[in-house]
């Protein structure tokens, strides 16, 4: 079957009333968690995973896809109206978007974000449908050594390239790999890191780990920083755009898409770099460079498109190789495993209908998001007035329920609390969450490929370099790791030249941006806005 007829089959599955309903639930939930800073699609999918065990896998994944895209849309609303990015990839949108809103152009900013997301999401999903089968064709020819190398690349790149501090990234990755090690060795049957507790010998359930780190960790963190100066939301009507806005928006949309998709599709993907690149490009190409910094519509249109195209791009390695590059894709991959579906290049052939229904539902979800976001943006903003104790109490309830329902073991609740405390400490010390989750999910598979390679080469490490692609990837890894060192050396030799080091200093870290925003006000301390003035 060619791509077109498979995709049409996918549409016929995704367009059944039941699946349409799940897509609708998904996009609404996704938008809601995207709007609320601190919650994200990864956490939502993790929380819903145990609840959806009773569903058809196809319906569940259609819902997850809606949540994934919805999160991307929702983040821009908060960025624009509140200058508090709901999602790490919306950080750049906030720069110009909030300025636009303050200048009374919130409606146009929201409109260009929503329509740009729709355009980029649709093009991105089309590219996904076209590229993924090609990647699969190429991927089935790869052996264990190459897979091992690709996974190493993904882990190291996500850890070393994204986020502020490499040390913290690697610390987080190490924690993740260690958590992934718990249980019986798959080859020899030895128990590892079980501390003599028989219940640990099955390993830690990935759902429990994800829920603990994302949901419980975040809830504890918010509880520890509950009181902060509330902000005012900028009032806005129905989003709309004038003719001039369209003229200024359409090119940034397309350019943003071009930046977003490849970066999302690379193993080192993420939406942060392309959004930033798009912003810089639009600033340079704009006919109104003086408006940048005061609310230029291009600065919203480009990054928002890049962000959504990257979201589509991320699904390419996830579906074609079983390689997640952001937190939501990682949790979705875990979802595949818990449904008994083996992720990897075989996915397209063994689970063809499911995969194509998933891709079709991305198109549908995109359209639904445009329809519910354009008229309802002001309504979504109202969510931010929700008192957070209620919200997080609900999340903790679902987290506990979910963790318990996975194996119906009270012991899982202990693990949930312990790892939740770990998630809290990670936020406290600024460790990014993404490397940990990737480590937990990819670690065991990485080990599997390593063992297979070494078995084939009878224990000879040279077997790791037996495929040309593997060698090529190791070279890339070496460059990624050596790059900052080289930069430092060049800088030392020529101290006068300023080299662009990427976006490291401009960006908050990945998952816990809310945490990194310094918010004042504790119990008795005077608030920053408090004023005491007495006139004689």
């Amino acid at each position, binding site marked *: 079957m060619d791509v077109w007829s498979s995709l049409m089959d996918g549409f016929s599955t995704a367009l059944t009333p039941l699946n349409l309903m799940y897509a609708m639930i998904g996009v609404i939930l996704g938008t809601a968690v995207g709007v*609320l*800073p601190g919650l994200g699609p990864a956490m939502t999918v993790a929380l819903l995973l145990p609840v959806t065990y009773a569903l058809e896998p196809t319906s569940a994944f259609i819902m997850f896809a809606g949540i994934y895209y919805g999160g991307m849309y929702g983040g821009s609303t908060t960025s624009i109206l*509140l200058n*508090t990015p709901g999602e790490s990839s919306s950080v750049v949108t906030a720069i110009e978007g909030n300025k636009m809103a303050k200048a009374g152009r919130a409606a146009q900013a929201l409109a260009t974000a929503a329509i740009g997301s729709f355009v980029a999401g649709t093009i991105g999903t089309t590219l996904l449908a076209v590229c993924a089968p090609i990647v699969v064709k190429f991927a089935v020819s790869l052996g264990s050594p190459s897979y091992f190398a690709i996974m190493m690349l993904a882990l190291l790149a996500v850890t070393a390239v994204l986020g502020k501090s490499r040390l913290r990234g690697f610390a987080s990755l190490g924690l993740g790999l260690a958590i992934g090690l718990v249980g019986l060795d798959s080859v020899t049957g030895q128990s590892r890191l079980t501390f003599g507790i028989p219940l640990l010998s099955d390993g830690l359930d990935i759902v429990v780990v994800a829920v603990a780190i994302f949901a419980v960790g975040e809830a504890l963190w918010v509880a520890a920083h*509950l*009181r*902060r*100066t*509330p*902000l*005012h*939301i900028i009032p806005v009507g129905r989003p709309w755009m004038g003719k001039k806005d369209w003229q200024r928006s359409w090119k940034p949309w397309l350019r943003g898409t071009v930046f977003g998709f490849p970066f999302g599709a690379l193993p080192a993907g993420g939406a942060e770099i392309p959004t930033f690149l798009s912003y810089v490009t639009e600033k340079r190409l704009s006919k109104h460079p003086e408006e940048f910094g005061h609310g230029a519509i291009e600065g919203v249109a480009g990054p928002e498109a890049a962000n959504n195209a990257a979201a589509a791009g991320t699904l390419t390695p996830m579906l074609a190789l079983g390689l997640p590059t952001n937190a939501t894709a990682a949790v979705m991959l875990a979802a595949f495993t818990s449904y008994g579906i083996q992720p990897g290049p075989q996915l397209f052939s063994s689970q063809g209908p499911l995969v194509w229904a998933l891709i079709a539902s991305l198109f549908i979800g995109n359209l639904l998001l445009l329809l519910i976001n354009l008229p309802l943006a002001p309504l979504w*903003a109202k969510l*931010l*007035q*929700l*008192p*957070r*104790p209620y919200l997080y109490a609900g999340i903790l309830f679902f987290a506990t329920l979910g963790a318990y329902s996975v194996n119906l073991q009270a012991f899982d609740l202990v693990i949930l609390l312990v790892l939740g405390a770990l998630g809290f400490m990670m936020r406290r010390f600024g460790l990014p969450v993404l490397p940990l989750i990737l480590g937990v999910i990819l670690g065991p598979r990485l080990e599997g490929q390593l063992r297979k390679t070494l078995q084939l080469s009878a224990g000879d490490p040279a077997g790791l370099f037996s495929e040309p692609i593997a060698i090529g990837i190791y070279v890339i890894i070496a460059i990624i790791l050596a790059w900052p060192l080289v930069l430092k050396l060049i800088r030392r030799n020529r101290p006068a030249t300023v080299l662009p080091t990427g976006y490291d200093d401009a960006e908050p870290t990945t998952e816990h941006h809310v945490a990194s925003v310094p918010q004042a*006000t504790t*119990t*008795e301390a005077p*608030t920053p*806005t*408090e*004023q*005491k*003035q*007495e*006139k*004689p």
Partner: protein
Amino acid sequence: MTIVVGYVPTPEGEAALTQAIAEAKKSNDTLLVINSSKGDALVDNRYAQEPDIQSIEERLAEHGIQHIIKQPIRGHDAAAEVLDAADDNDAKLIVIGLRRRSPVGKLIMGSVSQRILLEADCPVLAVKAD
């Protein structure tokens, strides 16, 4: 002596402030303006932002009234903050603004004004928006 006024950036709050200014001018008292939030939601439209506070500041200075503006965020509700402030400063009067509430709304959300009216140890002056 001190006059405490519970301020919110709404017509009711403005009415209360206007009334409080008149009272303070009459008796040459210190005016304590309280605008609080529990601080548990990301957005609270009843918490006055910087420009609001500045314009109040200017207005009070114009009238030549001794004043203190406080914006406590301590997780207490507005009634508790106003009553606390009145107690601490031995206030002689509390000024608040009233708005129309439905019985059901009051049942679910409670009423800040009602609590202040019932629990205050000093006279309470309640005004309505025009």
